[in-house]
C-alpha cells in the first residue's frame, strides 16, 4: 500500500469528492439540500454509516465468501443505517422528521456500497477508516455547499437567518425539485472549470 493514511483521507475532499468527481449517490444530494441544515445532517448521518461499515467490512474481509459478498455488505450497511435512524430519533428528532424517508434510504446510497466494494474489502482497517472519513466529509461538504446555494437563492436565508434583508425577492423554485437539478448542474459546471485549469 503506497498511499499513507493522510493521502487516503485527503483524496475524498477534492480528488474523488462525491458526488462531483464520483457521480454516485445523487438521490439524497438532490432531495435533502433544501436547506444547509438538512444537507449537513444528512452528510453526517451518511459519514457515520460509511465509516462504520467500511471498518467492519475491512475487519471481516477475509471471512466473507467472495460469491455472496454483496449480500453481506448490504446487511452490514442496513444494520448501521438502522442504528443511525434510532440515534437520530432519540437525539435530533426535528431533523429526523425533516429528513424522513431519506434516512432509511442511506442503505441504497451507491457511495456506501461503492466504497465497500471498491476499497474496504481490499484494504486494512486503518486505511478503510481514513477512506470512509474522507469520502464522508467530502460528501458532507458537497451537501453543505449545494444546500447553501439553494437556500440563499431560494429562500434568502442561511441556516434560517436572513441574508439580504427585505429587498430580496427569493427564487422559490430553487428550494423545490427543479432547483435541485439546476443547482447541481451549475455547481458541476463550476467544478469542471476549476479543475480544468
Amino acid at each position: 500500500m503506497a498511499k499513507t493514511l493522510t493521502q487516503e483521507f485527503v483524496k475524498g475532499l477534492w480528488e474523488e469528492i462525491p458526488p462531483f468527481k464520483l457521480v454516485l449517490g445523487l438521490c439524497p444530494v438532490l432531495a435533502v439540500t433544501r436547506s444547509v441544515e438538512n444537507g449537513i445532517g444528512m452528510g453526517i448521518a451518511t459519514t457515520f454509516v460509511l465509516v462504520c461499515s467500511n471498518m467492519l467490512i475491512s475487519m471481516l474481509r477475509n471471512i466473507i465468501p467472495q460469491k455472496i459478498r454483496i449480500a453481506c455488505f448490504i446487511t452490514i450497511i442496513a444494520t448501521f443505517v438502522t442504528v443511525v435512524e434510532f440515534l437520530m430519533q432519540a437525539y435530533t428528532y426535528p431533523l429526523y422528521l425533516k429528513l424522513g424517508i431519506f434516512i432509511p434510504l442511506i442503505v441504497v446510497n451507491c457511495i456506501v456500497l461503492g466504497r465497500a466494494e471498491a476499497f474496504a474489502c481490499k484494504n486494512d482497517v486503518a486505511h478503510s477508516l481514513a477512506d470512509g472519513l474522507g469520502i464522508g466529509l467530502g460528501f458532507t461538504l458537497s451537501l453543505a455547499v449545494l444546500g447553501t446555494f439553494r437556500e440563499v437563492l431560494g429562500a434568502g436565508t442561511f441556516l434560517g437567518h436572513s441574508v439580504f434583508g427585505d429587498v430580496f425577492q427569493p427564487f422559490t423554485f430553487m428550494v423545490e425539485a427543479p432547483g435541485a437539478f439546476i443547482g447541481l448542474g451549475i455547481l458541476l459546471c463550476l467544478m469542471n472549470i476549476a479543475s480544468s485549469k
Partner: protein
Amino acid sequence: MTEYIMLAVSCIFVNNIMLTQNLGACPFLGTSKSMDTAVGMGMAVIFVLVMAGITTWVVEAAVLKPLDLQFLRTVSFILIIASLVQFVEMFLKKSMPSLYAGLGIFLPLITTNCAVMGVCLININEEYTFMQALVSSFCYATGFALALVLFAGVRERVILARVPRPLQDTSIGLITAGFIALAFFGFKGMG
C-alpha cells in the same frame, strides 16, 4: 373507483417519483442516453417495483407488524428487494428469454435504485391498504418510466447541440432534467 384514479394521477404526475421527489436519480441519469436503454430500464422498474411493493406490504402486514419487529424494516426490505431482483432475473432467463434479453443488464441495477425502496417505504408510511399499495407501486413506476422516456428524448436532441465544454455530459443533463422538472412542477396543487 374515483379514489384509485385520484391516487393514480397523484402518483404519476403530481408527486412524480423522479421529478418532484428526487428518488432514483442515478439510473435516471445513467440510462437516459438513448431511447432504447430508457425504455428497457422503464419496463424493468415497472416490473420489479410492482412485485416489490406487493411483497414488502405483505411482509410488513403479516410478519413485522404482528411480531412488533418494525425496527427490522430497513434490513428486511433491502434483502427482500435484492433477492426478488435475483429471483426475477433467474425466472425470466429460464421462461421468457426474449424479455430477459431486453431487460437483461438493467435488472441487477434496480437493487440500488432508491425509487424501489422509496416507494415501498412510502406505501408503509402512508398506511395504504393492499389495493392502494398495488396501485401506487404501479403508478409511481409508470411515472418514473414516463419521466425517463421524456428525458431520453430531450437528451438525444441535446447531443446534437453545441454545448460549452465545462457544461458537457452530466452537467447539461442535470440542467435539462431541471427544466423537465419545472414543467412537472406545474401539476403541483392538483389532486
